[in-house]
């Protein structure tokens, strides 16, 4: 009783009502600072193998000797095939797989994205474990072209040699699928989606034919990326690529197995995100964390392993980097040892972490330690929204009663009311006790409509022909700038009150906060990045500073433009300038095409988050900002 009355009295406290923006700012600051703490030893952990069945690096590897001669021959063969047309090449690969004794098949696929055709044919073979019971399988992959577009001669040759070597063993408890996708992202995407597809018919945008040969449930996939021709090149380290589509990550045990086999058993150093010179300093750890955050937030494929993650198949790519003294046989032994470890699994990988941020190959931050960062930043929206809700329910004293900048002494002129509670008596201004009825229908409609309107840029930017994508972005930019203004102009002339604008902003921020904190549990990085870019939205209010309409128009335009720098189209332009993939900041074709490819072919939901969650929230914020100026201009 006592506590609740106390809480009720502080509810009306003017200090508390002014608190939300400061609290939001604090949340954002703490959230960002949190991220900078993570690389410290106290907040991260050494990796360890959680699933005892894996026994990484415990087996003796026999890959070597005459297999090296065979490998060289296969590499020559693959090199020859690379000079032939695609059909002959696939037939040649299939022939070699058949000679090895595998059951082989081809899978043509065809995607239509942004008016462009992506097509190719996957070649794969099934090695039935002689003593396996056909219920489980693991995948050995070598994409024909690697993620950087180079032909993966040695990788493919190594996969073929490994298949020939594996064929002689009878220890496999799972079948082995040897997959040679035509390209590093869409090939494996087509293959793995067909493997799990329940539909037999192909659709027009996604023409993926069914697989003639299948095995059981996939338990793991390892891709080899070693783009060196017959001339050979020794490598220094293995770069382990692990990011999946939409920021899904493989089980940490698989990654640890790769690291433990490569560095523990064979003495090959492991890197992440291509950071060959990682000195395990704070700075390097932070950089690795940043790289991880960026790739996870983009949600796009980072290698042939990426499309496996949404299907709950743990997969990684081993990419050779640097110039050192390890040769293809070491990579082969690492692969052999990895497959022996996956083969040991009694159950699907589940023991270790699925949510983690890596700082180097053997240090990670678990979800419990990093999640608060995104939650705090996303929480700032909810705090502001609550503040706005309370504020929207308070009656504003009329200007006669009290001036906005009045001090407490002047308040005495206002109407006072005697409030008695128990033996206590207090004089309270009347407007403090009044509760204004909140009109919710128009704000709710505005928020809903804006989110629905987000489908327009989403559709435009994903279905326009590749060449017109920059224009689609320009169109979106215009829409972004004009829609909030038009909306403010129309609604205010229809008599939209300040309270309703507050409620609109409140609902929008509430939705944003809830969505982003939910998203943080799925894709931490995306939620964190979007929250950071949106963090300004907490501090936007519709209060004109001046009564002079000319000043208002000028200040309004400037603040609106400043506010626009955090709008999705501008951020996309900025990102394009930073990535420098086009002729200049304005040449966004490459970036937009990649985004469209991700959306159409790989089910990457980043576009959806940008246009249906972030863009409407920003547009409503802009609407709130402009409505203050529009109102004062109209009143003047």
């Amino acid at each position, binding site marked *: 009783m006592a506590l609740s009355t106390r809480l009720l009295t502080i509810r009306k406290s003017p200090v508390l009502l002014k608190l939300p923006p400061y609290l939001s700012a604090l949340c954002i600051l703490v959230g960002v600072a949190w991220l900078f703490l993570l690389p410290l030893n106290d907040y991260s952990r050494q990796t360890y193998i959680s699933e005892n069945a894996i026994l990484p690096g415990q087996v003796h590897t*026999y890959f070597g000797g005459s297999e090296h*001669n*065979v490998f060289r021959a296969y590499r020559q063969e693959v090199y020859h095939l690379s000079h032939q047309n695609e059909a002959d090449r696939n037939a040649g690969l299939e022939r070699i797989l058949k000679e090895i004794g595998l059951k082989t098949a081809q899978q043509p696929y065809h995607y239509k994205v942004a008016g462009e055709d992506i097509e190719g044919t996957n070649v794969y073979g099934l090695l039935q474990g002689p*003593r396996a019971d056909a*219920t489980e399988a693991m995948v050995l992959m070598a994409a024909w072209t690697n993620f950087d577009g180079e032909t993966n001669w040695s990788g493919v040759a190594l996969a073929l040699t490994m298949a020939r070597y594996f064929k002689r063993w009878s220890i496999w408890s799972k079948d082995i699928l040897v997959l040679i996708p035509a390209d590093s992202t869409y090939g494996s995407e087509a293959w793995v989606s067909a493997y799990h597809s329940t539909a037999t018919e192909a659709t027009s945008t996604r023409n993926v034919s069914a697989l003639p040969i299948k095995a*059981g449930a996939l338990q793991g996939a390892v891709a080899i990326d070693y783009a060196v021709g017959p001339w050979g090149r020794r490598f220094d380290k293995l770069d382990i690529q692990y990011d999946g589509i939409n920021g899904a990550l493989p089980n940490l045990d698989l990654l640890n197995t790769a690291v433990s086999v490569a560095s523990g058993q064979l003495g090959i150093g492991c890197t992440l995100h291509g950071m060959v010179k990682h000195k395990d300093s704070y700075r390097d750890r932070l950089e690795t964390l940043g790289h991880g955050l960026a790739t996870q937030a983009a949600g796009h494929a980072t290698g042939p392993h990426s499309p496996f993650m949404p299907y709950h198949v743990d997969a990684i790519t081993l990419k050779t980097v640097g110039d050192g003294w390890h040769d293809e046989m070491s990579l082969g032994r690492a692969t052999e040892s990895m497959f022996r470890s996956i083969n040991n699994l009694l159950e699907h990988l589940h023991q270790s972490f699925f949510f983690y941020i890596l700082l180097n190959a053997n240090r990670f931050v678990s979800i419990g330690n990093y999640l608060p960062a995104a939650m705090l930043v996303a929480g700032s929206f909810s705090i502001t929204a609550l503040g706005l809700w309370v504020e929207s329910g308070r009656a504003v004293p009329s200007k006669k009663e009290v001036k906005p900048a009045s001090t407490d002494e002047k308040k005495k002129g206002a109407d006072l009311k005697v409030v008695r509670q128990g033996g206590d008596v207090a004089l309270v201004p009347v407007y403090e006790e009044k509760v204004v009825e909140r009109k919710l229908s128009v704000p709710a409609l505005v928020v809903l409509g804006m989110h629905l309107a987000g489908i327009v840029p989403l559709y435009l930017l994903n279905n326009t022909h590749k060449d017109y994508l920059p224009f689609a972005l320009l169109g979106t930019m215009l829409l972004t700038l004009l829609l909030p203004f038009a909306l403010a102009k129309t609604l205010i002339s229809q008599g939209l009150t300040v309270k309703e604008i507050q409620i609109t902003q409140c609902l929008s921020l509430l939705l944003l906060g809830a969505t982003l904190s939910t998203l943080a549990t799925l894709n931490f990085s995306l939620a964190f990045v979007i929250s950071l870019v949106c963090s300004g939205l907490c501090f936007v209010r519709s209060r004109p500073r001046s009564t002079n309409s000319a000043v208002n128009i000028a200040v309004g335009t400037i603040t609106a433009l400043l506010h626009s720098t955090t709008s999705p189209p501008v951020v996309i332009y900025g990102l394009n300038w930073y990535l420098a993939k086009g002729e200049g900041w304005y040449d966004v074709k490459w970036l937009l095409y990649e985004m469209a490819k991700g959306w159409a072919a790989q089910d990457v939901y980043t576009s959806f988050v940008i246009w249906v969650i972030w863009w409407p929230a920003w547009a409503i914020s802009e609407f709130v900002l402009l409505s203050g100026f529009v109102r004062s201009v109209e009143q003047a």
Partner: protein
Amino acid sequence: MKLQPLFALPATLLPVVFAAADPHAAYTEHLDLHPLPDGHLYAGFNFTATTSHAAYEAQHFRYFPRSLAQILQHTRTAELHLRFAFGRWDDESWGARPRGGRREGGTGAELWAWVDGEEDHPEVLEERWGGLVNSLSGLFCASLNFIDGTRTTRPVLSFEPEGTHKHGNEAQLLHGTLPHEVVCTENLTPFLKLLPCQGKAGISSLLDGHKVFDANWQTMAIDVRPLCNAKGEDCALEIQQTVDMVLDVERSMRPSHDPIPRPLPIEQIECDTSKEYHSDDTCYPQAPSGAPGWSLRKVFGQPINGNCDLESADATPNYPITLHVPADHPVELLSSASLPGKEEKMNLGSTIIHYPLPPHPHTFDISLPPHPQPPEPRNPPLLHATRHLTGHGLDPPILTTTLSNPSLSKNLTLTYLDTLPWFLRPYIHTLRLQRLSRACGDSAELQQLFYTPARDRERGSKIELLLHLPAGCTAQLSYGVEKAVLRYAEYPPDANRGFDVAGGIIKILPDSLLDEQVNNDSKREAASYLRTPPLLLPLPTPDFSMPYNVIILTSTVLALGFGSVFNLVVRRFVLVEEVPAAGLPTRLRDAVRALKLRLSSLGGRSGVEGKAGRVAGGTTVAG
């Protein structure tokens, strides 16, 4: 029934009488060796023992295994089929299945039997079936006792009795599978114990656990059936024990002291020297061709240890070993004491050689040198079938079976049996047959459907279909299934990789059955069978350690939170000056309490407690 074992003793005193009188007591064994393409060797062992029904009833056994017979008698089982199988038959490269797939089981263990019982008394039948599976479980060291009500089905179309059953004696068919059963040496040993020569002589001496269980495909079968003449009299009981396997010749011939398939020295690898890049350090391996050389000793680790001729020696010599080889393939007989084989030329340039076995102290071995020509596969298979469970995550998965008839002229009528565990519920309305090739026409269709729906935790569901598949037709049979959520105690205690779903059983009806003119039982062609590999069903599995963590954590948080909140809510903090002066009764009570405390502290207690008591008293006053 229970008294029957008591009569067994006098019954055993009658062997002399019956040995002469039992015209059916016979034992034969047969080994079929058939080199297959890709360097594989098919070896089919068959052991057949018969006993007359009268001797069986009188519990007199000569070749028929007593341990099994007593189980059959006790559980009133008229016909029994038991299978232990592992691996996959590769019909694309090896051809049709041996024995028409009739002596083959699904991966794991499979059991079906005709048990005497009436439809009206299911509890009697259940009891007998339960007795049968439990006894067989003990006999074969297998988990057959797990074939309970949830795994037992009563197929209608897929199985027919192989033996002749007396009319009026209505035996009921019961069928159960254990797809996750791991077949191992412990099942082979009791299997060999049932044989008269017990794996010590005759072809069974080749059956060594190390080799049998290193095979690419292997199945062990026990089939017991009654055989009567046309009038239904003069009955006999036959037991067939079958072991079929396909060995990888190269792998089987690896020395047992070094079975690791290390890379061969480069000199031993046949390189394709025609490649322009061929050099000392670059070797494109020649595609394997031809047939590898082998001998029984090298493949099975030992030669055949004499014969197992239990009948008198003057009987017609039998030829228990059959070898299929291409006509020009030389075969060397490695044992001096054995007679040369009887050759039989077949068309298509292949030869079948029948060998007799020498008497006991002698051993028998044959050797085939490598041959450049690979052996021909067996007859082409009648049907290809694959079965998959597709879909992922929370989507209801779809069970798809692709059936393809490779023949150009032969139309097939087949039955398809799916037994699903209760936690996999089929949506029968989604069942459809999709014709994938043009050859199917309109005549590829489902003709009959027998469906027994599942009852949660009591009975699995059974889908049995009769379908027609024209020549050259590839069709896809699919239906959606729903995964049930299990109770946490229903998960097996071992590592959970998912639940195994038994493979589908496909029976290809013989032409003669369709032809109405041939309706004579004795001349009827037997149906052939095909089983698809089992499937793995991943069910949402709780992390079993998680609930305990959560319980401990939440209890701690609750305790902490509740304690402080309760304290805040109940206690009122006031200044000492604000405490109203206590009344006379309270003062008196305090005085008494203080007196008590002083007395007890005098009695040897520590002063600290007294202090604590005073503070406690203070709070009472305040509250």
